[in-house]
């Protein structure tokens, strides 16, 4: 069943705002020739007609110059959510933008900081916050742009890894109402009243199908199940595990479910010495997750892909030379991604750097890696 969503059509140029918002970044088109910053997105520079436009990060600082409280809307999604506070912000970088204005912001004229968010339809929109201070909102239509775990029921598919255990603890700390902690084989020691152990082995059809009964209750699915070391097992867990989950859980998800998180790997973008088969399984999972994202978007459920480097953990990963991220730091990043409602997260310096290199030129990165491949 599809959800009522805000208006989705956008020009291809406008999707640049969405693409940046998916990473939590506020970017606008900047003319490479004359430096003009412009919004709404265009096909050419409004000042010099150059077509060489780059999306560049902006501070979002500006003045709220006019506002309205919208009571009548022409769209079903908003009709269920009025009144809605809107503003016009003159950004310090030049353009004027229509923005959502949380009720906590002072009346116009006021200094604000414009921040991008993904709306319930997964499209980038702009929200004005106070220049200093927390970016929390109490307005229901703005809260829906976040996947805040507070008060929500969350499934962590494998809580027996270092990351899984850290994530369960972080979710409890963040106020999750219930955390189902998946454990493939050995029983799980439970430490908090919110945590409920759940036998779940993503490599087994029966196990996944049995657990999918929870779909009627769960708000957030976080797939932490991962294998690293043996090709068959990697593919069975990392790719087929996600496939089993998406086939069994996605259709069972209740209306009102908000997010599905996949812990993938930054090496899904480009492999790394000693990690070829792991990278291949994660590339497959990444590709699969894009289809899952498109399906769940229809239902207002955000798919968040997390692309860490190697998680510091005992076992096979321990001997790898790749830079590692601590499980606790990764767990905190995942909770923050839910709160911010972003789609793509590259946590830690190693992942950030890998992503930056890949983004700048994937072919160059491939050569950089292959040059070092044999020496690794």
């Amino acid at each position: 069943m599809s959800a009522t969503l805000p208006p989705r059509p956008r020009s291809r140029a406008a999707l640049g705002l969405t693409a940046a918002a998916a990473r939590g970044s506020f970017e606008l088109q900047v003319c490479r020739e004359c430096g003009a910053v412009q919004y709404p997105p265009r096909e050419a520079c409004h000042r010099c007609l150059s077509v060489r436009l780059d999306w560049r990060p902006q501070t979002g600082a500006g003045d709220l110059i006019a506002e309205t409280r919208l009571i009548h809307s022409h769209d079903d999604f908003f009709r269920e959510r009025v009144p809605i506070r809107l503003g016009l912000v003159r950004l310090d970088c030049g353009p004027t933008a229509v923005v959502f204005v949380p009720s906590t912001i002072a009346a116009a004229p006021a200094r604000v900081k414009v921040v991008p968010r993904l709306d319930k339809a997964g499209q980038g929109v702009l929200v004005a916050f106070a220049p200093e201070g927390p970016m929390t909102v109490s307005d229901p239509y703005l809260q829906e742009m976040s996947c805040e775990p507070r008060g929500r029921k969350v499934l962590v598919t494998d809580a027996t890894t270092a990351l899984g255990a850290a994530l369960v603890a972080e979710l409890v700390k963040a106020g999750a109402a219930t955390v189902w902690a998946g454990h493939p084989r050995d029983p799980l020691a439970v430490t908090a009243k919110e945590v409920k152990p759940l036998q779940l082995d993503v490599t087994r059809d029966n196990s996944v199908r049995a657990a999918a009964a929870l779909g009627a209750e769960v708000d957030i699915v976080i797939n932490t199940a991962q294998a690293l070391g043996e090709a068959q097992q990697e593919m069975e867990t990392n790719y087929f595990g996600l496939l089993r989950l998406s086939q069994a859980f996605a259709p069972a998800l209740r209306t009102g479910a908000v997010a599905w998180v996949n812990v993938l790997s930054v090496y899904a973008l480009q492999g790394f010495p000693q990690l070829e088969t792991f990278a291949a399984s994660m590339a497959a999972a990444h590709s699969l997750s894009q289809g899952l994202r498109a399906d769940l978007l229809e239902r207002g459920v955000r798919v968040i892909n997390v692309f860490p480097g190697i998680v510091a953990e005992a076992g096979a990963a321990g001997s790898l030379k790749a830079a590692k991220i601590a499980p606790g730091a990764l767990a905190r990043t995942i909770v923050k991604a839910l709160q911010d409602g972003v789609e793509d997260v590259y946590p830690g310096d190693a992942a950030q750097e890998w992503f930056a290199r890949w983004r700048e030129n994937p072919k160059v990165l491939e050569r950089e890696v292959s040059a070092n491949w044999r020496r690794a």
Partner: protein
Amino acid sequence: MRGPAVVEKKDGGVSRQGYEGVVVTAPVTVAYERYSTNGAHWFAARALAGVLAESGLAKAALDGLCLSSFTLAPDTAVGLTQHLGLTLRWLDHIPMGGAAAVVSLRRALRAVQSGDASVVACVAADTNQVDTFRGTLGSFSRFSQDAVYPYGAGGPNASFAFLTAHYMRTYGARREDFGKLCVAQRANALTNPNALFKKPLSLQEYLDARPVAEPLHLFDCVMPCAGAEAFLVMRRERALDLGLPCTTVLATMERHNSFPDDPIQSRGGWVLDRDELFAQAGVGHADIDLLQTYDDYPVISLMQMEDLGFCAKGEGPQFVRSHEFTVTGDFPVNTSGGQLSVGQAGAAGGYLGLTEAVRQVTGAPAGAAVPQARIALVSGFGMINYDRGLCCGAAILAGPGA
């Protein structure tokens, strides 16, 4: 007698030609309906039949058409020629909303003056089905689709709420000021049989109306409807042969995307052209017997009064407080009731003031007459492409008595 004057351009360029020898005649209104099951083509057909009946011309005598419509899709003016069996030698389609009438008038005048066409029908026709307006809004413009509609889908109400809030804060306008204009227009509408609003409006009712997009309330917002407006442009001798009352065009202007660097719209392109407009017309502000503003929301009427030079920028509220806008007032405005009290029939909303002005200066108004109406100023404003209206236009018209 006042006459059109040739205006020397300040920049030393070619001086602008007047509109001698060409006239506007046969104003027609196709009765407005809140909703209609008929298409825009139906309303265009009624409008064309209307101008032919009014002028006594045969359909074959029409050789030019200038069309505006929001709801003709997937057709344009081209499709309409075959749909309505028109063989033309001059055709234009002006998708400029509230500025369409003035802009179409300019195109038609030059076409006839140059001999490219002999009789041009200017037509704005739109239908309004229950979901039409929403469909128009969602795909109104690319900027609107990308950067406005996803923010609450408020349509023009939200856009004008920003402009109104900013104008009120900056220039001290009060709701009562906008209310005074709306109440006067309603009084004007009560004698106009075409007006969809039939009941008087009191200032208290205006103030007590439900909010729509604050600071806008119900009676600040135009009501979409179906309908059409049209007129003919032809040579003066032709009109006189047909026994038609003639309206002369003394001067016109249009401007698009004026002041793009203003953070928010508080002025329009009229500011750039008003001196030349009045100079070309050879008249002063005191000679204007009636003003037809584009009035989908009252704030834009105040902006037009300022930008056309009837008062200084920011003095709109005081101007409203010190004048009366009814047909018999000292400064008659939107004498048919304007869109706010007649209804906004899509692109015909931009035509409403022009057909009314032609009727008033030829002594044949649909409702009450402005006493001794000879010279009218008609202003157009259209197309909130993103955060502001892009098209501004104005024309000064003179009746036979001027």
